[in-house]
Structure formats: C-alpha cells, structure tokens
C-alpha cells in the first residue's frame, strides 16, 4: 500500500465513488476485522459511544442484521428504524425524516431505500456519515465489497479473473455494484440473461454481454447468480419462473458441461432454489455462499470504522 494513501470518504454511497486503492484498503481492514469474529469474545471497543441508525425503508433481514452485528461487535449503540415504524409511510418526505434523525445526533446512518440516489439526498441534509445499504436499482456497495473480499480470499487476487453474473442485471443493484467493483480491480465481468434483463447500454458499465449462460460461464473463475424477483405486473420481463430456470438457471449439468471445475459459485441471497440456482449447486462444490455472509459482517465493520475517520483505534 502506498504510504501516502489515505481513505477519505465520509460516506459510502456507491462503488462508483471509490478507487481501486480505496477498495483494497477496505478489504485489508475487513480481513483484520474478520479475525475478531473468530475470537471467543467477539467485541472490540472501537466505536464505543457512537450512535448508529439502521434506517430501512425496504424489508431486509440479512443486510440489516449484518450491519447490526458489525456495529455491536464494535460496541456502537445501534437503533433500527424500519419503514413501517418510521414516518415514511405517513407521507413525510425523506428530508423531513432526515431532519428528525439529525436531532438524535447519529454518527452513522445506514440507509436502505427503494429510490435510487436517496442516500446522497440524505447525505446532503444530515451531518452523519451515510452508508448505502441498497438504493433502488442503483448500488449496494457493501455487498460488492464482501463479494470481492470472498473472491480475493479464494483466488488470491482479482486482477485478470473472469466474473460471470447471471440474472436480472437491469433491476439489480448488486449486479451494478459488482460490475463496477470487479472491473475497477482489474477483472473481466460478463453478464448473461434474457435481453429483458439487460439495462440500456450495459456495456457502458464495463461489462461484456453474453447471449447464453453457457457462454458466460465458460472459463469463468466466478459464477454469480442473482435473485429473480417475482414477476412484475407492469412490465412483462419473463414469461415464467419455470422457463427462466430452464434457460438461465445455474444447475450442475450446465456447470459440468461448460464451467471450470474450480469456479467459485456465489449468490447474494436469499436464493430461490430451483429458479436461478439449483440446490445441488448452491450447496455443492465451489459454493462460497455462506462465506459471503461471514465476510459481510467483516466488510461492514471495516466500513463503519473507516467512515468514522479511524478515531479511537484499538
């Protein structure tokens, strides 16, 4: 690491704002925090006295829990505000709600929201550091960081790897952040799925579009399937989950025929088993899905630590 390097982000709004050096730095810190999770007493006083608000406008168990565990392991005081208990559903605007939160003087607000760009809007109206835990179809930076961390642990590097992402790229903030993160770190990213799942000019993100899943997974070092959302009423993207599973699902036969035997199998969870991924793949050889969850806590600890400007280092 360059001696002059300094991590200088008050907020984590997206991978877009991070450099490759930033990402590697976050991953290095995360690895050091991962060790804490293996201790008998999984707690350090690093963020003692800090107030962290989990502000979730969309239902999420996994991400919210992961951030909450990360915060607790660092001794921060955490509060959860879910959309159902916040004023968000009563027609109060995000900015009004933000001003109310500001009165609680939080140090960090972790926000998940259905509108793309809302973490940045919040950041302009409160003093706290903002961490984006998923905004609309925009970004989910902590997910991409834990994914890059997991891949780096297994492959020893990111540069030069081929990453295949299969699924609804257009409506996936996980895909968006992962394309940006892996590309910044020097990997080649391929995306596959029906054309209805591809965003306009997806190549502009740095990904290569494959016409079939077989093509995407050939020679890939990492194969990531995305969770398929239930069919949308206003926009007929696919005819049925059944047909999707048949043509775009990741199954053992496909992998045996086209993939490298040492390819890592990833999924941001929760999996629709038998739709985007078969159980024999999710639970089989090469699957690192449970490690993704473990690394999620470590990466989120690193983010909380870094946005706090590394005061009170252990």
């Amino acid at each position: 690491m360059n001696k002059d390097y300094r991590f200088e982000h008050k907020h984590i709004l997206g991978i877009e704002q991070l450099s490759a050096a930033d990402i590697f730095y976050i991953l290095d810190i995360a690895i050091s925090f991962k060790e804490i999770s293996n201790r008998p007493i999984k707690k350090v006083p690093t963020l003692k006295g800090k107030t962290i608000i989990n502000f979730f406008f969309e239902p999420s168990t996994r991400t919210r829990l992961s951030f909450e565990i990360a915060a607790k392991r660092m001794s921060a005081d955490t509060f959860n505000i879910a959309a159902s208990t916040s004023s968000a559903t009563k027609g109060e605007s995000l900015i009004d709600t933000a001003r109310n939160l500001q009165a609680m003087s939080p140090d960090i607000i972790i926000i998940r929201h259905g509108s793309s760009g809302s973490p940045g809007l919040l950041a302009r109206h409160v003093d706290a550091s903002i961490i984006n835990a998923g905004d609309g179809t925009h970004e989910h930076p902590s997910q991409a960081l834990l994914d890059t961390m997991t891949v780096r642990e297994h492959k020893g590097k990111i540069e030069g790897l081929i990453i295949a992402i299969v699924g609804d790229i257009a409506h996936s903030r996980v895909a968006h952040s992962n394309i940006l993160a892996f590309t910044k770190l020097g990997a080649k990213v391929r995306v596959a799925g029906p054309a209805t799942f591809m965003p306009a000019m997806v190549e502009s993100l740095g990904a290569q579009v494959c016409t079939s899943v077989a093509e995407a997974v050939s020679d890939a070092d990492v194969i990531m399937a995305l969770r398929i959302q239930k069919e949308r009423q206003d926009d007929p993207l696919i005819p049925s989950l059944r047909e999707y599973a048949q043509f775009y699902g990741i199954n053992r036969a496909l992998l045996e025929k086209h993939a490298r035997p040492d390819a890592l199998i990833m999924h941001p969870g929760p999996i629709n088993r038998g739709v985007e991924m078969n159980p024999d793949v999710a639970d089989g050889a090469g699957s690192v899905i449970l490690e993704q969850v473990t690394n999620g806590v470590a990466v989120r600890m690193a983010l909380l630590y870094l946005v706090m400007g590394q005061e009170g280092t252990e």
Partner: protein
Amino acid sequence: MTRAKTIILQNGRVLDPAADRDFIGEIWLQDGLIVPAQQKHPEDCISFDLQGKWIVPGLIDMHVHLREPGEEYKETVESGTRAAAAGGFTAVACMPNTRPVNDCASVTQLILEATAEKGSARVYPVGAISAGSKGTGLAEYGELKEAGVVAVTDDGLPVLDSQLMRRAMEYAGSHELLVISHSEEIALSRNGSMNEGVVSTRLGLRGIPVAAEAIMVYREIALAELTGQHTHIAHVSTAAATELIRQATARGVRLTAETTPHYFTLTEEAVADYNTNAKMNPPLRTEGDRMAIIKGLQDGTFDAIATDHAPHSVLEKELEFDRAANGIIGLETSLALSLALVRDGLIDAARLVELMSVAPARILKVTGGNLAEGNVADVTVVDPDREFVFTEGSILSKGKNSPFLDWTFQGKAVLTVMGSRITHNELS
C-alpha cells in the same frame, strides 16, 4: 407599469422578419398600437436611445404552466406573467392542467379575469382536449372557444385513445381550434424518470426510451393526415421525432412543432447526481438528440421555441429523484439560451425572432409577431450583450426549479412593452 401617451424607441436595430425588415431606426408606440414615426416628438412621450440593442416584436411563449387556479403556491397568473415580462415575453399560452382542469368556460374566465386584474402579459388560455383531461369524452370546445381559449391539449398527459384524438382534431377543426399534442406512449414511459441510456443505467433510474415520444408523434402525424386538421406537436425532445416531423411537413401534412431551450442546451448528463431540477417530461436526451434539435431549428422543422415553463415548489422537487415532479421554469432564461444559438452562429437574429414571436402568433392566430404600423404595441428590446447571472434571488417566478441556476448569460430583454404598457424596464 407606466402608461405614457407615446413611447419612442430610437436608434435600435429593428428586427421585423414578418415584413422581412432589418434596419437601424425607430418604432413609435401610441395608445396601444404601433404608429408611424413623426418629425417632431410630442410633449408627453418617453423616448429610449437603443444604440446596440434590438427592437423586436414582443416575444410569445406558446407553452407555459401558470398553475392558477389551484396551485397558487407554485405560480399565479400575476407571478408567471411578471416572470414572462422580465424574460421579454408580451404573451403566453397557458396549459390547462390546473386544478380544476381548464375544460370549461368558467375556468377560462377565471384565468382571463386574473390576467385583466394582475397580468403583466397577454395570457391565452389553452383548454383541455378531454373533460377533466381524463382521456375519455371531449371537452366542450365551442363554449371554451367563446370563453377565449386559443387551442386544446391534455398537456402533461398524452391522449392515449387514438379515436378520441382523431375526434378531437375533427371537432376542434369545426371550432377553428388548434390541437396541441403532448406526445408520449405511456406504456413505454411509465415509472421512467429520465432518458433511457448510459446515464439512467449508471444512476439506476428507470428510463424513458426515445420510442415513447417517436411512436406518439407518428400517431399524431397519421391522424393529422387522416383528418386534414392542423396539429401542433409540443416540446419535442428527440432526433427521431424531429425527423418524423420533417418528413411529414415535407409531404404537406398540416403540422407545426415546438422545442424548448433545455432540449437544445442540455443533455441527460445534467441529471447526474440526481439533480431534480433537470427532471422533466419528456426528459433531457443525448448529445445526438440535442444536435438534431438544433438542426431542426435551423432548417425550419421546428416552427417555435417554447419554454414548457413548469414551476414547482421545493415540496415537489426536494425529493428522491424518482418521486420528484417533472418540469422546470423557463420564462426568464429562454431568450438568453436562444440568443446563445445566435452568438454561436447556429441561427441568425431574424430566425430567433421568427421562432420566438412571429411563428407563435401565426400558429395561435393571435395579435403580435410583427412591427407593422397599426399592429398592437407589443415590443421587446433586447440587449444582446448584457451579461447577467441567473441567481435564485433574481427569479420572479415563484418556482426556483431551474437547471440553469448560477449560470452566467449574455443577452437579455431590457425593455418589454405590452400594448403601450411598460411591463419590464432595465433601461431607466
């Protein structure tokens, strides 16, 4: 607000493209009319020495939202026409998407009464195509026309039912009313909040494809051909629609079209970082579209520049991008942005006057648009060199929702006269 017997505008460059005139000289205004110049100045007159400035027929903006009645916190006839006068406009046509919708004589009368009482510009109300702009039966055009509307549109919304649009054109024709189309195929644009392309993908925003505009513009062309009625296409944003209009006009379809300063000035990049002041419908498009719009202004595909002035308060704009309202204000920046085209050599001064005054008067069949003696004394004096910074504090419109905040402009209306009444004066 001064009303003198005679206003004498001298030593200016008189630009009167309707009469193919462009000369240094003077224009006399008396009792609301343009009158022949005399040898001797009368006793009670105001005269302005306009060296280096242009004397042009009063600018007409044929597409604004004045929000009255119903949303007076966003704009009123009074505030909107003050903004218009400051921008060099002597007349505006206001869209019917008020609350209630202007689909009957009483709403039209309300707007005209407010104008008579507090207006700083002529206001031409535009009525609704369908009752309540609900897209089902026709509004009562005969009554609307008698009350004073100059055209009909369901602007803000497209007319989805093609049969209704066909009947609207036919029935409007019987009442000599223009039909203005807000061309948008909702099935393609639904839930979209910006142009579909590189930037929408980067920002994770649902896009509105070019086809959403092009499909409906083509339908309007086909219906205008079917009915033989004059149809006007509002706020064109895409190269595709521009080309469709060019071809249709060339084969003789009775079609006119307008575009706006934001479509020939900005691109989708202005949305970057989720700037809700760059959110409008149709959305800002790509550089290729912007260039095509400019070409359309040059070659006559577009008849008019209109602003689609759409004031909103912070309540509608300081929101998550996908929840924020569409629309930006335009009356106080339109002339400066259009003058930039002249300064860049893309159109000449006469063409600018054609686009901003002559053609709107002709399309709406209203007074103004020329400086002929005997015509109404609606005149704008333009200082093409006057620099100004468009600050929030300087805005007269109640809406401050502009993507041009803090831009430095060159070129400004320095005197606006509407029917011999000085509605804006930065000269003395």
